[in-house]
């Protein structure tokens, strides 16, 4: 998967026709094989752009910040990123007419060890669902499968799971990078911050990490698109996908809802209901 040439051409064309103010893409870090997002403002920088299977980050995240608000923006989205973008459109966070979207029919990106990332192996919808231009050939929707790590953890006893998760919450340093890197966490005043300041005195304790990560993951239940931008941003490499994938599994098994953001206007599983939803856990 290498669309470097096409993307440089498209970005160059958009700048020379004056259709965009900013282009969000990927460039080399300059010191290793990895890539970082880059915001390009003028035609002469277009040759920095590239796109390969190392283009891991979700660029839709940059649309929630002040410097791209109300500007005309071009950006690249893979399948998962495009679904996050669709949710942002649905939730009125960006205006469609301000965007020029290059969709990718994705073949999967790699993790740090160079293998295909887990979310890409399990990916249900690799094609971009919202775009002005699609690169690659669409392959369509795939079957839902339960995440491999969730299956493993589900077999453990409660006491084992307590120990497993206590270690995760202990290691979190409360940098909030996970929240800031999620395109769907755009609240100007996040409720977690209020409590970190009052209830937990801003300390990076285990309890404050539990409070933050659990609240965060439940605010994303039914909306998370499994792009794993949060996990890539975490300096401790905590397996944050466990929380999101468990929510996804419960939602799929009980409400037969999956794949948030497939169509514009679909706000996710928590914004609908059915009269026949499971009721047996309620007294």
């Amino acid at each position, binding site marked *: 998967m290498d669309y470097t040439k096409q993307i440089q051409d498209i970005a160059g064309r958009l700048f020379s026709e004056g259709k965009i103010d900013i282009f969000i893409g990927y460039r080399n870090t300059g010191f290793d094989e990895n890539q970082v997002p880059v915001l390009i403002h003028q035609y002469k920088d277009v040759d920095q752009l590239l796109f390969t299977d190392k283009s891991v980050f979700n660029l839709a995240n940059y649309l929630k910040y002040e410097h791209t608000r109300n500007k005309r923006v071009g950006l690249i989205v893979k399948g998962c990123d495009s679904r996050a973008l669709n949710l942002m459109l649905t939730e009125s966070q960006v205006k469609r007419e301000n965007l020029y979207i290059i969709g990718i029919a994705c073949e999967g990106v790699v993790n740090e060890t160079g293998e295909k990332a887990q979310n890409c192996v399990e990916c249900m919808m690799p094609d971009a669902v919202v775009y002005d231009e699609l690169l690659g050939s669409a392959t369509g929707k795939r079957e839902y499968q339960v995440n491999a790590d969730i299956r493993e953890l589900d077999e453990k006893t*409660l006491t084992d799971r307590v120990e497993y998760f206590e270690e995760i919450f202990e290691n979190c340093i409360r940098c909030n990078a996970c929240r800031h890197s999620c395109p769907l966490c755009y609240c100007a005043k996040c409720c977690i911050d209020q409590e970190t300041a009052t*209830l937990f005195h801003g300390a990076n304790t*285990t309890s404050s990490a*539990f409070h933050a990560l659990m609240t965060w993951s439940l605010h994303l239940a039914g909306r998370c698109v499994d792009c794993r931008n949060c996990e890539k941003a975490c300096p401790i490499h905590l397996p944050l996908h466990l*929380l999101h994938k468990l929510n996804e599994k*419960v*939602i799929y098994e009980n409400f037969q809802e999956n794949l948030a953001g497939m169509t514009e206007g679909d706000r996710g599983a928590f914004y609908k209901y059915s*009269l026949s939803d499971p009721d047996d856990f309620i007294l």
Partner: protein
Amino acid sequence: MEAEIKEKIVSMEKPHMEAPPDWQPVIMGILCNWCSYAGSDLTGTSRIQYPPNIRIIRVPCSSRVDPWFIIKSLQTIADGVLISGCHPGDCHYISGNYYARRRFLVTKKLLNFVGFHENRVQFSWVSAAEGAKFAKVVTKVTEDIRKLGPLHLYKKENS
């Protein structure tokens, strides 16, 4: 005896932690204004006895309950949480409890996944006419939590 110990290890959060002798469970009750809160009022005015372990908060609707409230309760005073709203079809705002029902299920499963016993967080539908049911529900939840013992997970350290 052995089976009992094994059961404890499989189903307890911290099997090695014992409850202090005079310990009483604290239940956080989050009740909707239109049905369950009125129901609990009826329990009182009809002089039905129920355990004094519950601390009640009133919310406008069961769908006002952000999972955040449950997490905060468990991290501060509560050993267990009871959330109660109107029966399906009775919601004052027509469909609030249907939305809430989905959220409750996911919250319960996620908390169980990270290590909370499934009885720590419970839900009920109690109408304004069901004073006796409210007493029964509170009794059941209190006894469930008493069996589980004090909650030791992720309590805020500094107060």
